[in-house]
């Protein structure tokens, strides 16, 4: 098992960092949150030129068919810059799902995803109750069990549930279906907008449109695992960005006659953040190698927890300025808060680790 990056992977990450550094992501984020996706999509097109959107697409549909480790390198850098847009969906989960479905669905969208012409989003309750940026994405997919209407209801989306196949029509009614109904995949019909803690994540309900597959549990499960892996990488990158910002600030901010970074309380807090991030990294890389549900879940839990610690410490080190919109730390704070719950909560993933350890087969939902 190889848990270190190759020179080429490190160079790819550094290149994406340079690209995003020069692309004014903060301005694109502000516009994105205000409903103007144009500057953000321009950044996505540059990423597409660098190959990011083609990584998980098979070569026969114009992709690069890169390894999950390459994907992790890219996703960490997207999180490092808190790029707006449906990142995990576009670069990981949706290409993986479409490639697994194959046929007409793959033919229809994968070339556009690989070239960066379209962004993609996905709703897959309960891990992903809503679809991010479905108003901007060119491809919106819904993966659910028909009986998953119950999941949608539980997540507070009765209107979407009512539109699910097999719904009785009465809004709010829980559809009676066999518990083990097969997982279907539909083209998503964009519904109502829902508020997110992260203003750059514009959430939407998705209802089922054209059906693409009626029994795709395995494909959906693998796609969600790849998405969760990408999400873990995104979280790790966001954590790293906040550590860097906080360390820089601690060196500049003077209080009681010296930079606050000289105080042990600050030093220890930031050291704990650094240790947390570096200990999460091997789990992330291991999951990229094995892609087993257990390793992906371990990586998601570790990266979410390390990023959360980074967010709390960074906010505290910054003091009141960290809360201000102008300073920009909030882009990472809210992103981490949102992603801790998306792609499976830490409880979901801990349960999955437990289930595999105790040898109880547990599917993705």
């Amino acid at each position, binding site marked *: 098992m190889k848990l270190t990056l190759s*020179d*080429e992977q490190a*160079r790819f990450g550094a*290149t994406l960092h340079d*690209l995003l550094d020069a692309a004014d992501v903060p301005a694109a984020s502000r516009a994105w949150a205000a409903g103007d996706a144009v500057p953000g999509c321009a950044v996505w097109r540059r990423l597409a030129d*660098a190959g990011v959107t083609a990584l998980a697409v098979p070569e026969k549909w114009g992709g*690069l068919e*890169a390894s999950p480790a390459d994907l992790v390198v890219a996703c960490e850098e997207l999180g490092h810059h808190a790029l707006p847009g449906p990142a995990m969906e576009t670069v990981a989960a949706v290409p993986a799902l479409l490639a697994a479905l194959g046929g007409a669905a793959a033919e229809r969208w994968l070339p556009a995803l690989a070239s960066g012409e379209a962004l993609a989003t996905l709703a897959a309750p309960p891990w992903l109750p809503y679809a991010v940026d479905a108003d901007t994405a060119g491809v919106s997919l819904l993966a659910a069990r028909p009986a998953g209407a119950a999941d949608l209801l539980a997540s507070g989306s009765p209107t979407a549930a009512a539109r699910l196949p097999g719904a009785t029509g009465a809004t709010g009614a829980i559809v009676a279906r066999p518990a083990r109904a097969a997982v279907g995949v539909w083209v998503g019909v964009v519904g109502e907008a829902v508020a997110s803690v992260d203003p750059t994540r514009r959430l939407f309900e998705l209802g089922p449109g054209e059906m693409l597959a009626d029994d795709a549990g395995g494909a959906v499960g693998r796609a969600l695992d790849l998405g969760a892996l990408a999400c873990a990488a995104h979280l790790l990158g966001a954590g790293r960005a906040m550590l860097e910002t906080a360390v820089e600030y601690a060196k500049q901010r003077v209080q009681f006659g010296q930079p606050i970074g000289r105080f042990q309380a600050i030093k220890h807090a930031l050291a704990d953040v650094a240790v947390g991030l570096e200990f999460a990294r091997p789990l992330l890389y291991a999951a990229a190698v094995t892609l087993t549900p257990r390793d992906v879940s371990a990586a998601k839990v570790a990266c979410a927890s390390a990023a959360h610690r980074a967010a709390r410490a960074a906010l505290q080190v910054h003091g009141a300025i960290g809360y201000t919109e102008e300073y920009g730390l909030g882009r990472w704070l809210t992103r981490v808060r949102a992603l801790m719950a998306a792609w499976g909560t830490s409880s979901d993933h801990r349960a999955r680790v437990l289930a595999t350890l105790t040898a109880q087969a547990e599917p993705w939902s």
Partner: protein
Amino acid sequence: MNIVVLVKQVPDSGAERNLRTDDNTVDRGSASNVINEMDEYAIEEALRIQEAHGGEVTILTMGPSGAAESIRKALSMGPDKAVHVVDDALHGSCALATSKVLAAALGTLNADLVLCGAESTDGRVQVLPHMLAERLGVAALTGARKLTIDGSALTIERQTDEGYEVVTAQTPAVVSVWDTINEPRYPSFKGIMAAKKKPVQALSLGDLGVAPSEVGLDGASSAVVEHSKRPPRSGGQKVTDEGEGGVKLVEFLATEKFV
């Protein structure tokens, strides 16, 4: 068209740079070393010419073994191959000696066009393209902000403080470019992975038939006798505005001959 791009590895101009205390040469050991920024524009221009007219793009670097990292990075942008002139005897070479070595290396490459950055961010003398052209006996089109190619005819807009001059020449020629000429591409995933397999030929002074005595610190035509660190910035002069702050500002600007 056969294009050779000269690429120099330099200490990052955005980070702290030092001269060595023992021999007054650039301290590469402690620096973060990168491709000379202006050379990235030369690589981009070469790739655009290749896309339009075909041919081959070769990177030519003279530098220590650590420069191999910059060569791989340059190759990841798209050039086909690279030549690395590496020899311990080259340490401390002056511009004149550098041009001699590069001219010898170019003699093996049969280039129609030699592209390079107008200056390096560490040396900043801008003289190398001229020396090289003189040694090769070809035209020097320097400081270009635009380059157009029509068959074997080259036309550049040479950037000056007042505007630009139109200069023409025939291939083969040496063309140096400023950062106004294009927007260099970022290496793509494909380019980075492909760069790993591209050929990099290492040449020593012996391979080029250049005597070690002609290059290096001892063979240098110029010498750095001593150096000292730039003094730390002083506090500056504060003007308190008591109704005549504007006048004081103008007076200051006048003494500095800004107005």
